[in-house]
């Protein structure tokens, strides 16, 4: 059962890290739909 729990925790850790890693790779949903001239950030 320890393995099962650790796999579930690992799934949550991966889910938490995924957006951070994608951001590091430069993925941004905002950049797909707007240019710098119209983005307010």
């Amino acid at each position: 059962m320890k393995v099962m729990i650790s796999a579930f925790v690992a799934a949550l850790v991966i889910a938490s890290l995924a957006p951070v890693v994608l951001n590091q790779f430069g993925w941004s949903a905002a950049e797909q739909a707007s240019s710098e001239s119209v983005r307010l950030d």
Partner: protein
Amino acid sequence: MNKNLLGAAALVLATLLFNPAWAQESPPVDRTATGGAQTLEDIMRRQEQLKLDESFRSENLGNPANAAPITDQLGTRGGVSDADVWRSIRYNKIDPTIQSPGPANTVMIQDEGIAWYKLREGPVITYGGGALLGIIVLLVVFYFVRGRIMIDGGPAGTTIERFKAIERFGHWLLAGSFIALGLTGLITLMGRSFLIPVMGPDAFATLAAGSKWLHNNVAWAFMLGLVMTFVMWVAHNIPNKLDWQWLKAGGGIFTKGHPSAKKFNAGQKIIFWTVMVLGFSVSLSGLSLLFPFQMPMFADTFGVINSVLGTSLPTDLAPHEEMQYANIWHSIVAFVMMVAIIAHIYIGSVGMEGAFDAMGNGQVDLEWARQHHDLWVAEVEAKQGKGGSS
């Protein structure tokens, strides 16, 4: 039996034929009275939800070749009237100048979206939800008819290692993420219809936002689990003659004896390949949805299908249409997977005595193993020497 099946198939086909929207071809309409524009008959067919050939207006977009000289009346329009321009926008046949990048931004009206919306809110929810309820009812009936599959003669009391820790980790990574994806996917798909009336729009908005975050991000754990289990188990899941014997014996579900099997029997191999093939497919469509407009794949897929099968699936798809096909395909594949996995969960837990231990702590009762995977036990014992069970 075969006659019954044929009869049922004929009934289904006949039902489809009598569906007016699917079966009736659009008859030619005389539009001389309106100068080629919409007629009362067109309006009536649309109201009756009958098939209507829209080309009389979707292709009536003006003709620059017939434009009046630039100095003449309306010459500056270049042979295209206001109505022509609006039809071009309506049927996505213009190439507008835009200030923001992105393939989707050039589409001003995406007409096919309404067909996607109706499919998603109608048949996908109805048949998908029905399939989930159906398999649950079927398993409850099966449980009461067949009962729990017990170890013949009772457990041996000694155990044998069925799965190593890394195998169980990969399985539970895949399983845990799949259950999370299934539940959050159902909330996303069906929440508007079934949850908002119960919990109200404000609470559902929070739930939907959380579901979307979890669904988008736990997908990576699912894909990792899929790769792990594929690498670890593919060699044991290659079909062989033994599987045919196992299937002919019905897996021993309704008979006294247990057909021989190695590490995985034919039923488990079916689950394995179902999960691998559909899991790969649902991952691809999921990636397409996760990175909007960056991974269009349906136009190319339809092109290949058309060239192989001679079909005429659409290959000129708007960016939104690609996403809509990905969304519908993602839902359909996910429902098929959920049906298969619910059956898998049943047989791996309440349906069979001793089965859960294989993934619970990795140690299964030796008698259980001998009854369900006799050839695998023989292989393990031959490797370890007789009496090698723990």
